[in-house]
């Protein structure tokens, strides 16, 4: 796939240009709205997720904001899992209220809590397939039923799981979002996000979604649900979200990310195998007080993970180090093969202390609610030989225990 490194596309005529701008005919106008290289990535993600279409964005956070702003404005309300990525939590908890959009956070393991939090203003139920960093496994079919009983879409962040491990649309989710930066890209070289429109929800059954069901003055009275049906959400996300907010993916980043998508299946298989071996090694290490991964039998969602994620529950895990925060600091500074950085889903093994970094903006109470203790270390297991990863972790753990 070539990189269409261009901003714009020549029009055949004034009439064609006018028709493109007015959504009378499909095609490329300007790379903020669409680009042929980006479109290939979008189509492949849609195909992998079994969706009607996809819209790529500058980052995963841009994808989250675009999805929300496509569905609601000031006065809107979201019901979200409380166990989500710190950046997403901050957007929902701190930033969006400034624009009049509020969120009620609930326990992702409690379907009744989702239902109880729905108000007449609710326009979205949001959760992660496996929570960050606690790895709570979302019972997608059950929460989808809760959402659909209220005519609401369930949007899941499947960044940790990717289409290789789970197909949320087939389980009932309506929108799937990704930080494509992570496992889909897989090499830590390009930032990008995506929303995949499952296309299964009929937006016209309630009056909760005027952005999709009522005439839109931005396109001379166009009703997206009338005209685009199963693609109404992604059509509006592109036509308004990218046009007006402009958080587009660059064609070069799309090219880099496409290379990752081509090897997703073999990489995820190796990520999962390595994770299994690392979990076993950590469980046997005296310096480790606990290991949290759905493959561990004492994980509360162990059985659910086996049912929904039969190929594996991903390559992110967290564990506690004997000695708390200071031992954690010593461990992270002692790893040699693993990289200490704020990312996941790289070919390389990555470590971080969420309490002071990715989730550092959360209050002590919120951290506690999200199950993020001071001793928690998050590990993104890479593609190196499992023996090398285990050896590196073991030597860093030994160092972390010195002086205790």
């Amino acid at each position, binding site marked *: 796939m070539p990189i269409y490194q261009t901003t714009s596309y020549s029009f055949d005529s004034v009439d064609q240009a006018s*028709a493109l701008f*007015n*959504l*009378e*005919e*499909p*095609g*490329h106008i300007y790379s903020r709205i*669409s*680009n*042929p290289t*980006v*479109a*290939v990535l*979008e*189509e492949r993600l*849609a*195909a992998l997720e*079994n*969706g*009607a*279409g*996809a*819209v*790529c964005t500058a980052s995963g956070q841009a994808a989250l904001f675009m999805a929300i702003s496509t569905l609601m404005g000031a006065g809107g309300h979201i019901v979200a899992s409380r166990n989500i990525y710190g950046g997403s939590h901050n957007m929902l908890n701190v930033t969006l209220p400034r624009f009049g959009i509020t969120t009620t956070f609930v326990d992702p393991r409690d379907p009744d809590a989702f239902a109880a939090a729905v108000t007449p203003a609710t326009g979205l139920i949001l959760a992660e397939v496996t929570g960050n960093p606690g790895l709570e496994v979302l019972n997608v079919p059950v929460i989808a039923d809760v959402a659909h009983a209220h005519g609401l879409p369930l949007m899941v962040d499947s960044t940790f799981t990717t289409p290789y491990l789970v197909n949320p649309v*087939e389980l009932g989710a309506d929108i799937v979002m990704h930080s494509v930066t992570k496992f889909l890209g897989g090499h830590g070289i390009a930032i990008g996000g995506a929303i995949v429109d*499952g*296309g*299964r929800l*009929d937006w*016209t059954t309630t009056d909760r979604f005027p952005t999709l*069901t009522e*005439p839109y003055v931005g*396109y*001379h*009275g*166009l*009703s997206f*649900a*009338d*005209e*685009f*049906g*199963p*693609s109404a959400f*992604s*059509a509006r996300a*592109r036509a308004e979200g990218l046009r007006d907010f402009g958080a587009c993916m660059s064609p070069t980043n799309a090219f880099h990310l496409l290379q990752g998508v081509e090897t997703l299946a073999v990489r995820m298989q190796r990520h999962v195998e390595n994770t299994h071996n690392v979990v076993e090694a950590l469980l046997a290490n005296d310096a480790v007080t606990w290991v949290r991964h759905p493959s561990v039998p004492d994980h509360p969602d162990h059985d659910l993970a086996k049912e929904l994620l039969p190929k594996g529950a991903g390559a992110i895990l967290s564990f506690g180090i004997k000695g708390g925060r200071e031992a954690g600091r010593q461990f992270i500074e002692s790893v040699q093969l693993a990289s200490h950085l704020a990312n996941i889903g790289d070919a390389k093994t990555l470590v971080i202390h969420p309490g002071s970094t990715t989730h550092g903006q959360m209050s002590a109470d919120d951290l506690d609610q999200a199950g993020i203790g001071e001793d928690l270390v998050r590990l993104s297991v890479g593609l190196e030989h499992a023996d090398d990863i285990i050896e590196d972790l073991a030597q860093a753990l030994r160092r972390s225990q010195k002086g205790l």
Partner: protein
Amino acid sequence: MTLLSFGDLHVSAATGGRDIGTDDPIVVLMHGAAMDRTVWSLQTRWLAHHGSPVIAIDLPGHGASPEAERSSVQDYADWVADLVAALGRPVHLVGHSMGSFIALEATQRCELESIVLVGTAQAMPVHPKLVEAAEANDPLAAQLMSGWAFAHQTRTGPHPSPGSSMVGSTQAMIAQAKPGVLHHDLVMCADYEAALTTAELVAVPTTLLLGEADRMTPVRNAQPLIEAMEGATVHVVSGTGHMVQIEAPEITRAAIAAAVASVHD
């Protein structure tokens, strides 16, 4: 959802974002089995903004139609004849797949300006596995149908509409159909045996738009219809399958516009 009312007849339809007026000739777009008005989304707005009032309708029992499904192609044609009468203006009738059978039958029930038949054939037998999956309301049915519907050349993209999935968006459309509708439509199409005899009676200007690589209604199965409708305009679109309006939206728009122009210009 836009519900247009013509007397006692209520139709859910896309109008391309324009008022359809009351007098000018109008294009009526009809979808195929278990689909809905949005299968024409790459034509509707263009036609509406290029001088052709248009309604892409949900047939009874489909999409957001308030009407119950009909039991046969002939019964659907009766309903279309009622719609044409209620519109009270010149009508160009366009039908895709199952809709093409309904359009054929409608020619014997009401006055039309022209018909455009997209992805049609003298018969539409359906693979038993597809019928079986549809009867069980198995998602496999939508998967099989959307997989077969596109030509090998188009099914992997790029979709004319950036970011859309050719197969995925069609699968989603079929998946939104009410339970039982796909099975009902497939059986109804397979049972309809009057295409050829009806085609011999057609007296209005006719256009056929066929996908050269159509695996559901192959061109060879449309040949008897072409021979029966002497003088019909025939377009065989290279590199397209059964979903010509998605795989070749520009050619489809042009063919419909030409059919309208041939009568009124």
